[in-house]
């Protein structure tokens, strides 16, 4: 087991290394950060000074190796824009994104699982058809459009919820969380729903597909023949089996939700990491982009690891191998 973990960690390090190389080359290919950051009326001397100040006057490989050297000491560089350590910027924004992503995932499971179960057990009923049609809408509509519609309806027309931004926060463990206050929750409702919409649909479909398959399995038929209560059959036998794909996908989606909350955060002016990364990309703030991606890779690797571990718990047929 520990060999397995060690292996995964080494692989993770390699992935991060590859990632940093790609980002360096990528940002270099896209454009010149100084051209974006510099005031248009700066003269050539000022431009040269800015290029030197940001360390962009050196050859790319030299920039990369000095980055690498610092990274090994835990320093991922300072933001070109904010002049603050990139990791610190990300850590400041992380709680906002994390609570949004967890909120969305929670919503997705809370809503998606029962609906999917229902749709799978009575696949031909009107209710199931409605649920499935709704789930299709859930991932047909572009996120940005749904977000704006939510604001239009619930904030502008009905005035029930605040339109944008993050509400009051409470400091726990040195970080500011908004889900602990009612005001914070009202601010979170719309963006979380917006972000969850796609996942609700996904969970519904996965659950339904799983249920339908499992119900036809021999062991379920056998359990039925044995006269077990339907509740027990569904609750124990069916449920356990459909959990694998759901856990995989929800796990994977949690990571991508965190990474991809860019659009929701930008529509709802939610001050999270997604907003930070899109702003950073727009101005080619390379240290922040690199640091952000490294953190995301790290997070993904952890999530994948957990998913794999859960796999082996849920399905004894899959064994963790270290051969």
């Amino acid at each position, binding site marked *: 087991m520990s060999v397995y973990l060690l292996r995964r960690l080494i692989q993770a390090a390699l992935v991060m290394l590859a990632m940093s190389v790609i980002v360096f080359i990528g940002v270099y290919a896209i454009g010149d*950060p100084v051209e974006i950051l510099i005031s248009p009326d700066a003269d050539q001397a000022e431009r040269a000074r*800015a290029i030197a100040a940001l360390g962009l006057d050196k050859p790319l490989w030299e920039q990369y190796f000095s980055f690498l050297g610092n990274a090994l000491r835990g320093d991922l560089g300072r933001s070109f*824009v904010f002049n603050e350590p990139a990791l610190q*910027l990300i850590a400041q924004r992380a709680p906002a994104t994390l609570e949004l992503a967890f909120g969305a995932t929670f919503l997705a499971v809370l809503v998606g699982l029962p609906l999917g179960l229902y749709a799978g057990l009575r696949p031909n009923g009107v209710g199931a058809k409605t649920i499935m049609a709704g789930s299709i809408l859930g991932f047909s509509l572009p996120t940005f459009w749904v977000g704006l519609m939510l604001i239009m309806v619930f904030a502008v027309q009905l005035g029930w919820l605040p339109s944008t931004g993050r509400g009051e926060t409470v400091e726990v463990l040195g970080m500011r969380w908004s889900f602990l206050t009612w005001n914070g929750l009202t601010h979170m409702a719309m963006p979380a729903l917006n972000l969850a919409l796609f996942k609700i649909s996904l969970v519904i479909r996965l659950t339904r597909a799983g249920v339908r398959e499992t119900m036809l399995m021999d062991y379920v038929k056998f359990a039925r023949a044995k006269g077990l209560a339907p509740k027990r059959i569904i609750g124990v036998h069916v449920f356990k089996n459909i959990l694998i794909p759901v856990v995989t996908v929800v796990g994977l989606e949690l990571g991508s939700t965190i990474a991809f909350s860019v659009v929701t955060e930008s529509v709802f*002016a939610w001050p999270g990491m997604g*907003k930070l990364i899109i702003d950073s990309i*727009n101005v080619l703030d390379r240290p922040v982009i690199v640091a952000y991606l490294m953190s995301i890779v790290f997070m993904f690797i952890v999530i994948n690891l957990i998913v794999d571990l859960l796999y082996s718990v849920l399905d004894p047929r899959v064994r963790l191998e270290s051969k």
Partner: protein
Amino acid sequence: MRKLYLAATVALAALCGAHPSGAQSLTMAVGAPITSLDPHYHQLSPNNAVADMIFDKLVNTDARSRQVPGLATEWRAIGPTTWEFKLRPGVKFHNGRDFTAEDVAFTLARLPNVPNAPSSFAAYSRPIQRVEIVDPLTIRFHTAQPHPLLPLDMTNVRILDKETHEDATTEDFNSTRVAIGTGPWRVVSHRNGERIEFERNDAYWGSAPAFQRVAYRMITNDAARTAALLAGDVDFIDQVPTTDLSKLRNDQRVALSEVVGLRLIFLGLDHLRGPNENSPFVTDNDGKPLGRNPLRDVRVRRALSMAIDRQAIVERVMEGAATPAGQFLPPGVPGHVPDVQPTPFDPEGARRLLAEAGYPNGFRIQLNGPNDRYINDGRIIQAVGQMWTRVGVRTAVEGQTWAVFVGRAARADYSAHLIGWGSNPDGSHPLRNILATVSAEKGWGASNRGRYSNPEVDRLLQASLTELDEEKRQKLVLDAQRIAAEDVAVIPIHIQTNIWAMRRGLVHEARADEATRAQDVRPAPR
């Protein structure tokens, strides 16, 4: 269920009660993120606007960008290379320290020494060779050459306190620890990229701000910002999208404030390739290289300008929020050339000129531009593409993100590109940066992305930069601009109108320089 509903109602009521109302507090939402509270870290308009709430300059500018006394009460050139500034007495920083000439000298010394600055303010102190403190309220600046623009330079320099800011880093400003100036607002809190909160500086030397507290929020998405205003979450927004103008003008709950700005949207043309070279995105009608660069022919440039229906762009694309332009600065500003008019729309004349220049059947060109930088930029290049195509210059249009576009534009990769220029009100500003021949030595033409070059323009500009007689200087500046306009160095399209929107009951003094500042907002007189 009912309990839940009740809880929701109660909370909602509490929420409404907590809503900022009355003259005590103001919630503003701006479209551009503020990246730092250090006034000398990043020369960036949104940062400067916030800095102008916290700090003061020796020379302030009014809403129409005219110079008015700030921390200096008067200034004059007492010799060809010496400027003397009289400082305002009795001014105190937020922490109670007195403002003196020492602070000015300290500030000027700090400008070039802000570590990691992505765009520093060093250019404003560079002409000054020596600072002489005559007495605590008199300071002299000695320059190497006559420098008529020194007061203009001082409109960009926010004054810090020597004692407080001696070793202050940018991070110290961002953490609000040393975000201390002499301005009308004190910083209460700062959440990077999210919001800044201010409190009135009751000891302010100028006219007292109207609100006790101000929340300055950043909502970068245009539609979300408008929605926040309509939902009553914020009282005031800037950068009102033109697409929402018609709706907001008819909304009884909302008032607008607007003013003609100082930002010209124009087309840069390829002057880099010689008359007998190929311009990268110009071909003949069959897509083959032309063997010459038609853009080097002034008749072609004029034809391309005549083909553009500026009024149509202003009305249809900008929904009225712009003024057709024939030069960099709008009327009413000293640098405006009175006898240069926007080129009238004349498609027939354009076709004639093209034929005269040897292109009776036109040619093909690609027009590049950003699609996320200026108001409706992507729409404008498409509209220009339509108009050029109609006079026979078949135009392909490509809009890119600014990050990609600006790097290539800086390398003069394009044949024709749309770009904007936010000017200060002096004509020397666009001349020096856009119309002058590129010269690293003189620091000219750093934003001359078409590589236009005209010795006559350069000569007049050079003369104006050391001319201390204001009348003569203005004449040189106007002459240089006139020559460039007649030569169609660039194709001006329009000057943007700056628009803000607020809940009814507020009034705002709209600023030509686009700055969104809380001291310009007041409750409407009843």
